C-alpha cells in the first residue's frame, strides 16, 4: 500500500492564481481530512469528508473548496490564492467507527503564494 499520497510536493503561486492540491489514499478509508500547518501553530482542520459526495467545513475553511467524487480521492481547491494561504498542507485519512480514530497522514504539499 502506498498509504496517503499528495501532489505536488512544492508549488509557488502568484496572488490570484488558482490550483488544486491532490490527495489519494489506497486504504479504502471512509474519512478524509485536509489540514494546514503554519509555523508554531500546529495543524488546523480545513475540510473533511465522511464519504463520496459528503464534505464538511473544519476550523479554517475560508478560501478553500473540496470535492469527494470517489472514496480514494479528496482534492483541495484554492480559487484565488492569497499570501495568507502560504502554508504546508497535509491530507489524512482513517477508517470510520469508534476505535478507528487514528489518522494516517500524507507527506504534505508546501505552498508559497507571492
Amino acid at each position, binding site marked *: 500500500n502506498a498509504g496517503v499520497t499528495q501532489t505536488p510536493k512544492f508549488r509557488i503561486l502568484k496572488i490570484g492564481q488558482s490550483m488544486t492540491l491532490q490527495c489519494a489514499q489506497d486504504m479504502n478509508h471512509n474519512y478524509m481530512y485536509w489540514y494546514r500547518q503554519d509555523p508554531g501553530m500546529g495543524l488546523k482542520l480545513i475540510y473533511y469528508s465522511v464519504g463520496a459526495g459528503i464534505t464538511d467545513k473544519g476550523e479554517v475553511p475560508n478560501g478553500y473548496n473540496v470535492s469527494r467524487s470517489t472514496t480514494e480521492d479528496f482534492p483541495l481547491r484554492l480559487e484565488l490564492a492569497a499570501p495568507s494561504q502560504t502554508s504546508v498542507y497535509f491530507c489524512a485519512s482513517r477508517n470510520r467507527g469508534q476505535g478507528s480514530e*487514528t489518522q494516517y497522514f500524507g*507527506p504534505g504539499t508546501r505552498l508559497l503564494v507571492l
Partner: protein
Amino acid sequence: AQSVTQPDIHITVSEGASLELRCNYSYGATPYLFWYVQSPGQGLQLLLKYFSGDTLVQGIKGFEAEFKRSQSSFNLRKPSVHWSDAAEYFCALSYSGGGADGLTFGKGTHLIIQP
C-alpha cells in the same frame, strides 16, 4: 471547546539523556489522545495512542506516554534519546464518541539533541 496545550516550544536534551514532553488537554470527557512526530520536511508519523485501559502506553522507537486523568495530561517520555529523535512532536486529541471529527493539535514541541 476542546484544546491541547504543549507548554514547551523548544526542548534541548543531551544524547543519551531522558526526555519528557508535556501535553495538557481540555475536554468534557475522556478523549482519545495521540502523539505524532514530524521529521524536517516530512509528514506526521504516529508514535502512540491512548483510547482506554492501561494508562501507560507503549509506542514505536522506544517512546511511552502516561495518561493522567486527574491532571488532564498525556506526557511523552523516552529513557534515552538518540540524535535521530530530533524532530517536531505533536500531541493531539480526538472526540471519543465516534464520528468523523478531525484531530485537535497542540502547537508542537521542537526537540533538539545535543551531542
